[in-house]
């Protein structure tokens, strides 16, 4: 029998076309996803060099980053945004690329659309000009973000010049306490390993906590691999993966489905395969986690206090001081009770149906605190439709949330959804960088969807278990 291998190694070896002069690998990209912000320059570069799109049937497009979520009437008020969307339409039409446009019923954040359509499949190499492409790793794909010149490379050659990553297995075993979600798991991992801990690695998430997770929860975890420095993260494909994909528009059918499942199963990491590093975490140790600072690793348990400059190692002091100053938090004070101005519910991290269902359970019969602006932005038109079919939009609206159309929205604030001044936002998104949510002095506190619901209701950063009366101990 051949040497046991990880999924990453198997997929890498299968897709390696040849070795380049500098030792990098020319890697075949099975599936390429594009959106309006990072693709126009790439098409421009092709035109400048007189190149064609080599395999247009392998590229899929949608609009997400700059699309308004409060109106869908075109032309959009923002002339630049309108131009970028029209440019993508033009490029897709010219090159024969399938486009999930605003009127398709299939539009959404690119990382929602791939899985929903069954385009995202186990064992595939997937690239997109967006760092949260790591999301697709939930299906056992090797998926990573690329720059615009690389978007050009994939369009022109269906390949990238890449160096092989090391693989770190992150094992989370045991159980999660009630009120602890996939978002807390990944925030805890990033907090533990640091925002640069993953440089040079692909993360393989394993152990029974991930095995028990739904596909949507796995997507939340893989999505934020990049926040931990890892360009891609994945979960080995299993019965949950196949059940999610079966019957999706682009999934194989009939005999081809059976063949695909058997092939996909064989790609999972072999027992006894070698990892470059292994990290073990107990699920019971993971608390509801929130960020206090200006990178996703600056996170604490909801029950902890914001750090003090003197309380951290010397090498971290400048960073902590800068973060405390930007966040306008009192050093050493509890994070709980911090006043919240905006609640943002959505993004490719937590804008899925199960996120809305879980929060709606608690929002039912409750009201958003006066003075909090609360917006709910489904990640895709499918998520929106399904929530509306279940009456979840009504629960959010009755609570005082604005119910919007699908897009990236206030995760990066390229559309009209922005913080104003130094507003503090309780957010289900993925980045708390300075200025990330559209105001240079705006402040972001990342947390799980249910914690955002609690913050919206109380008007402050809160422990959702207390607000909603959730028993703390895990049921055996």
């Amino acid at each position: 029998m051949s040497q046991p291998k990880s999924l990453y190694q198997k997929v890498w070896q299968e897709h390696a076309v040849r070795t380049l002069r500098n030792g990098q690998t020319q890697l075949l990209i099975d599936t390429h996803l594009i959106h309006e912000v990072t693709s126009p320059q790439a098409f421009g570069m092709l035109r400048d060099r007189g190149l064609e799109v080599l395999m247009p049937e392998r590229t899929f497009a949608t609009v997400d980053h700059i699309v308004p979520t409060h109106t869908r009437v075109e032309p959009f008020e923002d002339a630049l945004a309108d131009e970028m969307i029209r440019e993508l339409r033009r490029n897709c039409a010219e090159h024969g690329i399938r486009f999930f446009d605003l009127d398709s019923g299939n539009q959404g954040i690119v990382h929602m659309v791939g899985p929903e359509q069954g385009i995202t499949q186990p064992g595939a190499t997937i690239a997109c000009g967006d760092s949260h492409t790591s999301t697709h790793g939930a299906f056992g794909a090797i998926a990573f973000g690329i720059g615009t010149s690389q978007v050009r490379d994939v369009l022109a050659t269906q390949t990238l010049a890449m160096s092989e990553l090391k693989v770190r297995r992150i094992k989370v075993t045991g159980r999660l306490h009630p009120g602890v979600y996939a978002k807390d798991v990944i925030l805890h991992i990033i907090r533990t390993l640091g925002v640069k801990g993953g440089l040079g690695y692909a993360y393989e998430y394993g152990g029974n906590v991930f095995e028990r997770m739904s596909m949507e929860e796995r997507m939340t975890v893989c999505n934020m691999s990049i926040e931990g420095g890892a360009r891609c993260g994945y979960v080995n494909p299993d019965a949950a993966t196949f059940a999610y994909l079966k019957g999706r528009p682009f999934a194989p059918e009939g005999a081809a489905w059976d063949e695909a499942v058997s092939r996909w199963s064989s790609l999972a990491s072999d027992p006894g395969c070698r990892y470059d590093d292994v990290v073990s975490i107990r699920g019971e140790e993971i608390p509801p986690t929130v960020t206090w600072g200006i990178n996703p690793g600056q996170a604490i348990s909801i029950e902890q206090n914001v750090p003090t400059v003197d309380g951290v190692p010397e090498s971290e002091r400048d960073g902590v001081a800068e973060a405390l100053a930007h966040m306008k938090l009192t050093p050493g004070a509890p994070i709980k009770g911090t006043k919240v101005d905006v609640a943002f519910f959505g993004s490719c991290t937590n804008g899925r149906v199960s996120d809305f269902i879980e929060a709606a359970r608690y929002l039912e019969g409750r009201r958003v605190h006066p003075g909090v602006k609360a917006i709910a932005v489904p990640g895709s038109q499918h998520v929106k439709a399904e929530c509306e079919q279940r009456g979840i939009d009504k629960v959010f609206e009755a609570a005082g949330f604005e119910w919007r159309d699908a897009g990236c929205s206030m995760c990066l604030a390229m559309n009209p959804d922005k913080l104003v001044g130094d507003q503090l936002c309780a957010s289900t998104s993925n980045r708390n960088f300075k200025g990330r949510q559209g105001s240079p002095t705006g402040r972001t506190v990342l947390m799980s969807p249910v914690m955002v619901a609690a913050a919206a209701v109380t008007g402050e950063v809160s422990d959702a278990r207390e607000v909603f009366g959730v028993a703390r101990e895990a049921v055996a």
Partner: protein
Amino acid sequence: MALEQIREVRGHGVPVPGDDIDTDRIIPARYLKCVTFDGLGEGLFYDERFGEDGAPKGHPLDDPRYAGATVLVSGSNFGCGSSREHAPQSIARAGFGAVVAESFGEIFFGNATTLGLVCVAVSPEARRALSEALRRDPALEIVVDVDGKQVRAGDRVFEASIPESAREALLAGYWDPLGELLEGVGDVKAAAERLGRAGAV
């Protein structure tokens, strides 16, 4: 397509303090509303440099003593965050040829190298010493030696690291890989055929 062989970047430096400087800080998202990269240099570190009223905040990039710098010196995990190539594009278009930092966000590093923007890593001690030297003497000449894997500042020499694949590509003038990738298209088609197509309809 033959590209310039980049053996070294020589010029004045500017220290930009901080670790984990993310791509949102390097180029705020509102500057991404464009269909070409032209003019991106003006948005470089915009919100770090200017207040909401447009008044300068005293960022080193606006310090006249560092005017014309071509080497940017910063902390660890520089360029973490999003995949926006607009980040290295804005640095290059603002006139920089090299970034010296303790470490780099991976996507940023690849994007920068593809543009011929040299990124080399130095130890935390070396970065501190370099930044300090530049604060004392902004006119100091910095040499980022790709071939010799060194950063030289006056008479001080610091070891630098760069992945061998990037070093090779810069030295031999094929840092933009498109030409070589195109040469392999025959093999690519065969590999695609062999693997079948994911997402086939």
